[in-house]
């Protein structure tokens, strides 16, 4: 048995076997071979193995997902059967006496790049299919093990150096009980997504990939950060009890469904959910979210070769808005850059990506890009209440520019007689201290503020939220940060704009009295926290919360704030 502790990223008790995530495929080298006939035989075998993989995959997908998804692998089979690549490969192997993997990779990427350059969106997308199909052949040639995260047979814990947001999104929730990574912090994107998806996770474990082998039994606690490799029977028993308790707790929270989100003295606020894709709507429903306080649109843009068209974006936004059945949805415009990159948008190398070309800064430079998204959101507003918010605003000029582009998008739609709602609300994310300091001025131009406290904390405290060595400085109890938030709250109240928060401190129970006392109208969080927050909220008293804010404002250190909140509670 070995016990290690990492950063608790997403709560949950898990006991399951480890599955290591392979690093991305390494490059295939060109080698010369003696026996070209033998190499051709190897190739033939790899093709037939790849074919049988695809047949299994089609069958499994048909059972687990549906016809439409299964058709993808049927199409892959058709590509694999294509005689052109195979014939060319065989003749090149014979003529040049080189290894099959190299030849297949070369020829298939030639084909893929022809497709890449086509105008037609459909054909362009086939490039990825070709690469995928033939990398399957190369995997067999090189005897590389291929991992299909969406088609796992047994319950596992994923072990990886790091998970990209797209890898996290492709996780099969039924089978993946949790994940453990070497790097990352509480607010890195994979951690945030794990909370939304309700998958337990511990990150920042430094060398978990070296300490664990595939199939090792692991028990971990996503709330404390404790990870136990090869647990003893005693520990397993202990974890099973915890697992039972967790279930009971979940059941008791279920009783809060349908209850009002209000304090003892009847002060009501909205408890909303943060979402990234339509798949998250399930969790909103289960946890009784009253609205969507943050819809992160960037997932629509990630993991593809070209930007989604207006039509595609419109469909996605409309699907979500319609599914919300009249609940308000605050949509954040593209927040790319920082730790999120797109293949088709070259940002260039940056020394400090979080202080660099990101979010609204990109959108204001790439107006073509930005307007497509704005038109798509506007069109979706005809189907339900929408608020649109701009991320990373640091000055009045940026806000006014973004609003002017929104107006242009509106008039373009009017000219084409395409409908949108004129009740669409406009807001901005308060994430940069300069925006917080002039929030009284900014309030004159918007309907709502949403405090993106993950970034606001990192910018106000000058702490890189991805850097583990300064993680303890990333401190939501820091009085400087709390005063800054209070200033924004006061300005919002003075000007009568709606005040919302969507960062991960929105659900911190110790801080909840402050948010209530400051007058937040909406707190938006990973849906999994909503019911518990409602439970805490229902034990608070508004007047007392307001007094706690005044008291807190006089304090000078995090420790004082923490102690004060504990005593007053």
């Amino acid at each position, binding site marked *: 048995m070995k016990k290690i502790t990492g950063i608790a990223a997403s709560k949950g008790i898990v006991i399951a076997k480890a599955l290591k995530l392979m690093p991305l495929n390494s490059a295939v080298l060109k080698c010369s071979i003696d026996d070209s006939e033998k190499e051709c035989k190897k190739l033939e075998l790899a093709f037939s193995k790849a074919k049988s993989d695809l047949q299994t995959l089609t069958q499994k997908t048909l059972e687990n997902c549906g016809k439409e998804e299964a058709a993808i692998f049927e199409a892959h089979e058709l590509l694999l*059967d*294509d005689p*052109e*690549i195979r014939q060319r490969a065989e003749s090149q192997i014979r003529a040049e006496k080189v290894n099959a993997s190299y030849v297949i990779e070369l020829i298939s990427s030639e084909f893929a790049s022809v*497709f890449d350059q*086509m105008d037609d969106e459909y054909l362009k997308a*086939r490039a990825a299919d070709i690469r995928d199909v033939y990398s399957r052949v190369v995997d067999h040639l090189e005897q590389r093990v291929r991992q299909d995260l969406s088609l796992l047979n047994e319950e596992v814990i994923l072990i990886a150096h790091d998970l990209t947001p797209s890898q996290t999104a492709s996780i099969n929730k039924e089978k993946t009980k949790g994940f453990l990574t070497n790097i990352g912090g509480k607010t890195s994107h994979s951690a945030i997504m794990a909370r939304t998806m309700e998958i337990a996770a511990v990150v920042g474990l430094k060398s978990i990939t070296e300490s664990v082998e595939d199939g090792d039994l692991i028990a971990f606690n996503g709330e404390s950060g404790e990870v136990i490799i090869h647990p003893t029977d005693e520990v397993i028993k202990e974890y099973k009890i915890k697992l039972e308790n967790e279930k009971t707790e979940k059941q008791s929270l279920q009783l809060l469904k349908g209850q009002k989100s209000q304090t003892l003295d009847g002060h009501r606020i909205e408890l909303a959910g943060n979402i990234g894709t339509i798949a998250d709507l399930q969790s909103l429903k289960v946890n009784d979210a009253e609205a969507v306080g943050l819809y992160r649109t960037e997932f629509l843009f990630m993991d593809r070769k070209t930007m989604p068209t207006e039509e595609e974006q419109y469909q996605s936004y409309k699907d979500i808005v319609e599914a919300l059945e009249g609940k308000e949805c605050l949509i954040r415009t593209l927040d790319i850059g920082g730790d999120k990159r797109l293949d088709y948008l070259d940002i260039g190398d940056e020394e400090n990506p979080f202080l660099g070309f990101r979010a609204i800064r990109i959108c204001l430079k790439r107006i073509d890009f930005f307007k497509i998204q704005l038109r798509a959101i506007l069109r979706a507003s005809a189907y339900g209440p929408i608020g649109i918010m701009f991320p990373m605003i640091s000055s009045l000029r940026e806000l006014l520019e973004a609003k002017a582009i929104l107006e242009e998008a509106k008039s373009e739609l009017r000219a084409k007689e395409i409908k949108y709602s004129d009740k669409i609300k406009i807001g901005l994310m308060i994430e940069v201290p300069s925006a917080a300091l002039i929030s009284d001025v900014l309030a004159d131009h918007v309907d709502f503020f949403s405090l993106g406290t993950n970034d606001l904390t990192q910018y106000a405290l000058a702490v890189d939220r991805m850097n583990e060595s300064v993680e303890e400085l990333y401190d939501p109890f820091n009085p400087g940060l709390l005063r800054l938030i209070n200033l924004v709250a006061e300005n919002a109240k003075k000007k009568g704009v709606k005040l919302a928060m969507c960062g991960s401190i929105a659900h911190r129970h110790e801080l909840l009295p402050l948010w209530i006392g400051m007058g937040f109208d909406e707190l938006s969080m990973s849906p999994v926290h909503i019911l518990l927050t409602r439970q805490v909220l229902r034990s608070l008293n508004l007047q007392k919360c307001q007094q706690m804010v005044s008291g807190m404002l006089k304090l000078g250190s995090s420790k004082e704030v923490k102690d004060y909140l504990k005593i007053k509670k």
Partner: protein
Amino acid sequence: MEKVVTILNAEGLHARPAAVLVKKASSFSSDIQIKTSDKEVNAKSLMSVMTLGLKKDAQFTIVAKGDDEQTAVDEISKLVEDKFGL
């Protein structure tokens, strides 16, 4: 054996029409090529056919050489004229 045909499908010769054509061509033993003004590709290769990117009203020549070349040209041209049965 060869014959000139015109694509009538609105979406051109890609996706489903291309797949239908390739399937048909593969059922013959003859060597079958699709010839356009600037390219000539193997009609049994889906990828090659799709790379032509032929749109509606585009013309191409079906060229078949082999034992069943007559039937191949007849049946493939009929398929194109029938909009691939789609």
